[in-house]
């Protein structure tokens, strides 16, 4: 299970502690979102979290500091996820150098598909940062093989044709059912993690037999937004994550 949070959301001071709680509650990979002013592949939840983080002054340097602090205490794989422009302005070379020195393991840049920005792919290999690329329901089989070739760590399988954010009913599992066999057949060198729209344990279970893991982002951020006013919001978030991963044990268990 991979969990996405926007770095610096809900406040920059708690990201390191939050990541620790996520790991203790069952996260296997942490995706740290680098907020961008114009997140055009994201739905309202991540748009909101990005804005909150940016309003509090989060930038790439402060994210590198967060990663360094997490690395002092944990070996959990950290994948940075964000749009290319802030990375470009930081300086491509400088970004990858710094990322590898603070202990970043991988990177997801949704607006840089394989082949469209070769310099980025070369830097990933020079600095040993795993490039994670995406496949979607409308990706051709030939293209899936290209994505598999270009990726390391895992391939990010987008569950639905759309932007990030929670989905209604069984939309995700219905959509995944239609194209996952094609993905399995063509993505053979990397684990396949599926993300976009997964809200809870049932959603995850409905698809997890067919893939190597799942990613939750918007639902986690929605949860944090709901409990943030409580003093014990980090612990409550841990409970939410355990429910995500293992399910709710008893019918009387009141989860947030």
């Amino acid at each position: 299970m991979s969990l996405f949070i926007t770095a610096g959301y809900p406040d920059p001071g708690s990201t390191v502690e939050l990541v620790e709680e996520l790991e203790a509650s069952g996260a296997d990979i942490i995706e740290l979102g680098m907020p961008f002013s114009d997140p055009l592949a994201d739905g309202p939840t991540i748009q909101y979290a990005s804005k909150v983080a940016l309003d509090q002054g989060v930038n790439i340097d402060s994210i590198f500091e967060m990663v360094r602090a997490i690395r002092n205490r944990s070996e959990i794989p950290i994948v940075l996820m964000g749009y290319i422009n802030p990375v470009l302005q930081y300086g491509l070379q400088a970004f990858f150098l710094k990322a590898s020195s603070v202990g970043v393991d991988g990177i997801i840049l949704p607006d840089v598909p394989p082949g469209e920005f070769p310099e980025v792919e070369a830097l990933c290999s020079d600095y040993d940062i795993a490039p994670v690329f995406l496949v979607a329901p409308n990706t051709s089989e030939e293209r899936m093989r290209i994505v598999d070739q270009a990726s390391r760590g895992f391939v990010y399988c987008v569950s639905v044709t759309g932007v990030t954010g929670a989905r209604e009913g069984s939309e995700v599992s219905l959509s995944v059912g239609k194209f996952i066999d094609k993905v399995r057949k063509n993505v053979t060198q990397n684990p396949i993690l599926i993300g976009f729209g997964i809200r809870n344990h049932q959603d995850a279970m409905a698809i997890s037999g067919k893939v190597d893991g799942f990613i939750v982002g918007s639902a986690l951020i929605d949860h944090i937004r709901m409990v943030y006013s409580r003093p014990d919001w980090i612990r409550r978030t841990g409970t939410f994550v355990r429910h995500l991963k293992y399910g709710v044990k008893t019918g009387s268990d009141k989860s947030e």
Partner: protein
Amino acid sequence: MKTAKSPEVASAETPDKRGFYGKFGGRYVPEILLPALDDLNAAFADVRNDASFQQQYQTLLKEYVGRETPLTYAGRLTGHFGKARIYLKREDLCHTGAHKINNAIGQVLLARKMGKTRIIAETGAGQHGVATATVCAHFGMSCIIYMGSEDISRQKLNVDRMRLLGAEVRPVESGAKTLSNAINEAIRDWVSNVDDTFYIIGSAVGPHPYPLMVREFQSVIGTETIDQSLEQEGRLPDYVLACVGGGSNAIGMFYPMLDYQDIRLYGIEAAGEGVQTSRHAATLTGGHPGILHGSLSYLLQTEHGQIAEAHSVSAGLDYPGVGPEHSFLRDTGRVTYTSVTDDQAIEGVRLLSSKEGIIPALETAHAIAYLHELMPRTRSDEFVVINCSGRGDKDMETIAKFIKQP
């Protein structure tokens, strides 16, 4: 006399196969959109050589838009400056009141050819939205127009027009609530409905092949201007001016002229309250290269690469990016990019209205206003062409507000 040699030679190289103009352009988009861009690229390549498509396009330009638009000699304006003769390329006389419809017709025809049933578009000043809604009404198609709520309030007339034409106008509340945010929302819609939806971009921006496509559908402006200049003046113009928001009217005017090195080309951006302030939209003057909306181009942005809010009194120029080919032409020096402020633009509206009886759009007024700087450098045996990209009816409320101020 300058000869009208074929302008295809040197410019045929831009963009390259991958959609780059020098280092600018490209396709920096989510994987989900790549198949759509591939299909679009293939369909566009087909229609470029498809005689029946071209004939349908030309017929609509003639019989529906009212092309060709005149090249009007502006006698009193010329007299006002007492230097080179001034002509206006009258895109304001296009059906719906601006050049935007040249592109909307081309893209709607392409959408129909590709069997797409759902049309979406973004709009700033509302002119592209009106043009898209108009062409959709003409073909009995429905469309959805994304528009920032700030623009909805300052271009109300155009919102009413779009609704009357049967379009659904969806307000966008994020960021500065202007053109750039409307493009974000249109892209999100496209990502979510990519199978049946055609996204009609209204300016020479976005991922390849959009900047190329918009250039091609707007090049009729420059091609006609060349012919009319030869007919009316017996030679090509010495100076050509166009305002630059995303850059569609400018590239349509400039592209056919690029190889005529003696024509001096000027793109005029919106300096808002001044390029030295943070409230302007002069991307090529005050920005740095970066990636937004699928391509690499000059951008207004913070040192951390966050997109800055643009500002201009004219909604159509109020955009922190610019088409990638303009970035290329800026760096090669073929086109000179400069800017004028809100106040100068308002003065430009007044000048053209009072001297020629033509009320220009606030966007267009930026090009008019630059005459104050350009004309003293010209000679009376030269002539200037200004692309009069649109008419000012939509801006009357804004203009009235400014003119009342002391």
